[in-house]
């Protein structure tokens, strides 16, 4: 008895309690809601509610699973097309962010130490204004009678405005603009830790600066590249606000489909199924990242 009481006390004190807190957090705020969404995606429209999760009509708890929403997603080419288009835009955004963000982060990391905090501040400065406001501001720049078109016409560069709004172009600009800091920050954190002696060693062994960049700097910043790309790619797939405001009807993004299913069609099972498939799509790159990181860890541990 005394023994078991002791164990009970031990559980609520010290180590287990501290480890327990994040578990409780994760289970109650991530795992359970996710299971609810999963269950709703497997219900029919009539039974789709939180109070109706488990069927008690037979006297014991049972689950009735209905795969019609998933069947519909698989059968309707529009969904597949939208998923592919979401991945395409997310990939384009990630690649452009990497292309712009890498040199950005590199020069930040190489800048004199005393101005680095200022540069970092400038990267984060846009966050001080509402996200929605900033996206809306792009609208005023890009519309047919917006600042850019008016300026170009008055300068005589062209006579007709270019249609930039509601095109893949405006969508991509908005996405890259919004997610660029999430690429720069992990890359900067990684590159600022890069030991300059590796670059000197490469030069010493006869490597030109450009070659050194590809052979030493890029491989050594792989972890930063992966982290930055994930931080841009994952939220880009499900992005709703930017396609809604800048993308127009020509640009298919899964976030908008999700919105329509929920609020226009009121089809919760369908919306949940769309969300679950999106999570699976995101899980694939996440799993790859995890594998890479654990490979690195075991590489470091194993002698």
């Amino acid at each position, binding site marked *: 008895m005394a023994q078991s009481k002791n164990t009970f006390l031990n559980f609520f004190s010290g180590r287990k309690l501290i480890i327990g807190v994040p578990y409780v957090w994760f289970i109650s705020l991530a795992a359970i809601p996710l299971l609810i969404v999963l269950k709703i995606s497997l219900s029919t429209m009539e039974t789709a509610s939180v109070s109706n999760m488990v069927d008690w009509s037979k006297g014991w708890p049972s689950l009735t699973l209905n795969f019609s929403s998933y069947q519909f997603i698989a059968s309707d080419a529009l969904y597949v097309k939208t998923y592919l288009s979401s991945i395409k835009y997310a990939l384009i955004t990630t690649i452009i962010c990497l292309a712009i963000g890498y040199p950005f982060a590199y020069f930040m990391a190489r800048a004199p130490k005393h101005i680095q905090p200022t540069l970092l501040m400038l990267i984060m400065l846009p966050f001080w204004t509402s996200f929605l406001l900033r996206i809306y501001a792009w609208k005023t720049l890009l519309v047919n009678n917006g600042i850019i078109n008016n300026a170009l016409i008055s300068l005589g560069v062209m006579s007709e405005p270019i249609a930039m709004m509601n095109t893949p172009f405006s969508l991509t600009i908005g996405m890259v603009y919004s997610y660029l800091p999430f690429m720069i920050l992990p890359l900067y954190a990684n590159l600022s830790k890069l*030991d300059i*002696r*590796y670059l*000197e*060693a*490469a*030069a*010493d*062994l*006869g*490597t*030109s*600066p450009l*070659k050194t960049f590809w*052979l*030493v700097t890029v*491989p*050594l910043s*792989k972890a930063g590249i992966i982290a930055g790309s994930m931080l841009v790619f994952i939220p880009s797939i499900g992005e709703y606000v930017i396609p809604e405001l800048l993308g127009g009807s020509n640009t298919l993004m899964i976030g908008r489909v999700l919105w329509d299913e929920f609020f226009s069609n009121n089809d919760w099972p369908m919306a949940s199924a769309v969300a679950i498939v999106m999570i699976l799509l995101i899980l694939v790159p996440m799993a790859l990242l995890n594998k890479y990181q654990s490979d690195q860890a075991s*590489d*470091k541990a*194993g*002698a």
Partner: protein
Amino acid sequence: MATASKPQTGMKSAEKEELLRIEGISKIYDGTVKAVDDVSLTVYKGEIFGLLGGSGCGKSTLLRMLAGFEAPTKGKIYLAEQDITNLPAYQRPINMMFQSYALFPHLSVWENIAFGLKRDGMPKDQIAERVEKMLGLVQLTKFAPRKPHQLSGGQQQRVALARSLAKRPQLLLLDEPLGALDKKLRETTQLELVNIIEQVGVTCVLVTHDQEEAMTMASRIAVMSEGYFLQVGDPDTVYEMPNSRKVADFIGNVNMFEGVIEEDEPDHVTVRSLECIHYVGHGISGHAGMQVGVALRPEKVMLSKRKPKGDYNWAEGEVIEIVYFGAHTTYHLKLASGMVLKAQEINSTRDLSCGLTWGDKAYAHWSNEAMVVLTQ
């Protein structure tokens, strides 16, 4: 501290072939801070040249200028009669073994060693052959597929050496090559390193703050302070005949007497200091009445309980400290003037030979040729 014999020291000057010549080189940071101040130096083929000095003396800056990582503010560097002052690091036939090695963490041991060879566009089979040879040289053949972090400190050091030797550089730069190793490992590695360097026959410039390392490895050393050379010479010359108080103080332990020359004869000088009268058995370039320092190494001081004969080269004091090192013991003798004289006695028998203990009165004495008169 005594130095082992070096094969290169026997070289006659006529056989010496110049490899590296530094002419009046300076490095000034921010317009005022002189890291290296008008240094000139010639290094001969096959030599291991040691740059010795405390931190901030400019030795690393000088080495970095040789490697091409820093541009000199003034002066010229010639390698085999060719001006390389403005040649970028990646075009110099010079390789460096970095302090704490800078092995590429993302590449295996094999790839690290092959790195420089690949840049030269060497055919694949030749690269493989050369890498295998290098791995054999440093006895790491079976570690080829490992990553640097999977190796011990001593193994990493050998990979770094193999990498810097792989391209057969004309000049090898060693930046504190043993700094990251523990004391026991250093002693064995030191000799191993010299053996490998001699086997390859490459000319070396070695930078170190550790005088023992410089003296055992280098055939010639330069003692550096505040950006310039205090003295350049064989390790034994620098140790036994330091040219200034600074050098005597930096290399090894020293008892420094301050005195005035009384007699200045061609075959001897006497110097009167507060502690005693020194009789130096050779002439010096000075004059009577001149203020000089008399440097006396602790291992050249003998101790006895009886008063020595004669009027010169002895002093009386009280034992205030006994520091036991195993192989030898250092006695600290407080003299009447307040100066603490260090005397190092070899423990040639297992009962500690002198029989002196704390608080004992003792006499320290030394021979006519034990000390060096320093005018600077």
